[in-house]
């Protein structure tokens, strides 16, 4: 979706302001919501891309006006509602009012160490890779209303395939309820001037990770 989360190349947000000796969490609730996202994710009801899409669908003023972990909280609440884990009335009451739905598994403290690592997103390829390193490609000009990982600034531009990264779960499918639909994943590099025009810094190159359906031969 063409949302405000897709920030590459936007103006007006000001300088980057690093915080010296930054704490891992700025308030205890930030840690709780981070950990809840991991634990609820472990239930296996949705994918990481579903979680991303839930944050992208926050209204633009909410997305831009919320801290990172507030966005995580709002996105998690919405997914819990959508998947029937909690009800609006329960959130209002601050306690459970109904019995739980059966779930396949829950994360215990003993499970945490062996589940710290992310699983692999590599899948058996349905077909040979269409592109090889060195191939010139053009990104498609797509504007899907659902979740996509092709940023707006990199649509309709010519670049070069640098690496084939394997055949990965396709976010545009999985976050939109269409299964994993694995697709070849490439690192595609663009000249800065191809993306930003002739006045751009000629020493800059930008790459994205692009799934095969984002690309056509150029």
């Amino acid at each position, binding site marked *: 979706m063409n949302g405000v989360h897709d920030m*590459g190349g936007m103006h007006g947000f000001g300088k980057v302001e690093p915080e010296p000796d930054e704490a891992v969490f700025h308030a205890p609730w930030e840690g709780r919501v981070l950990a809840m996202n991991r634990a609820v994710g472990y239930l296996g009801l949705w994918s990481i891309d579903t979680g991303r899409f839930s944050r992208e669908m926050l209204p633009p003023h909410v997305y831009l006006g919320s801290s990172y972990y507030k966005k995580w909280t709002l996105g998690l609440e919405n997914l819990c509602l959508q998947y029937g884990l909690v009800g609006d009335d329960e959130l209002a009451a601050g306690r459970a009012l109904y019995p739980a739905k059966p779930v396949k598994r829950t994360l215990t403290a003993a499970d945490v160490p062996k589940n710290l690592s992310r699983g692999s997103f590599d899948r058996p390829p349905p077909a040979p890779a269409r592109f090889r390193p060195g191939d010139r490609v053009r990104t498609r000009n797509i504007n899907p209303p659902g979740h996509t990982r092709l940023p707006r600034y990199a649509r309709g531009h010519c670049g070069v395939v640098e690496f084939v990264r394997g055949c990965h779960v396709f976010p545009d499918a999985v976050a939109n309820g269409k299964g994993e639909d694995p697709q070849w994943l490439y690192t595609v590099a663009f000249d*800065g001037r191809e993306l930003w025009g002739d006045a751009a810094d000629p020493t800059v190159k930008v790459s994205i990770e692009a799934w095969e359906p984002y690309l056509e031969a150029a």
Partner: protein
Amino acid sequence: MQLRVRALETILTEKGYVDPKALDYIIDTYETKIGPHIGARIIARAWADPAFKRRLIADAATAVGELRLPARATHLIAVENTPQLHNMVVCTLCSCYPWDVLGLPPVWYKSAPYRSRAVMDPRGVLADFGVNLPADTEIRVWDSTAETRYLVVPMRPAGADDWSEERLASLVTRDSMIGTGLALTPGAAP
């Protein structure tokens, strides 16, 4: 937010969907066990051992397995800075970051100013960090739009030729592994 998050946790706990002890464990892990000190060990090993650096660049996820890290660094890719090339990592769409080797990302990495400008004006962003590169250095920005995760191998500073791996690690800052900083020089190390 404290009350709102507590309400959600209470409901999810009462229904048995989450175990508060598991949440405690996850929080403690990211506060005390997984952080940029892990990445610094990897970079120090790469500086000290050219064969390890070659393995790291060829296949970082496998190479860092030798270091017995708390979390396996799935889909990790290492990119090396040279006098001609400076690498910088961003996630313009959300906040993708190599948690397994750097811990949780700092606020600025997830912020609109960084995500909007890193791909269009990386030199301006570097200036915000006080980093000024030669005008002819090529700058490569890696936008982490997939589950691949990028770790920058900063250049080894001069003046630390006979340093042990452990001392070398003290020169490796978090920002130098994101590409918004350089490794410390020996006189500046803590």
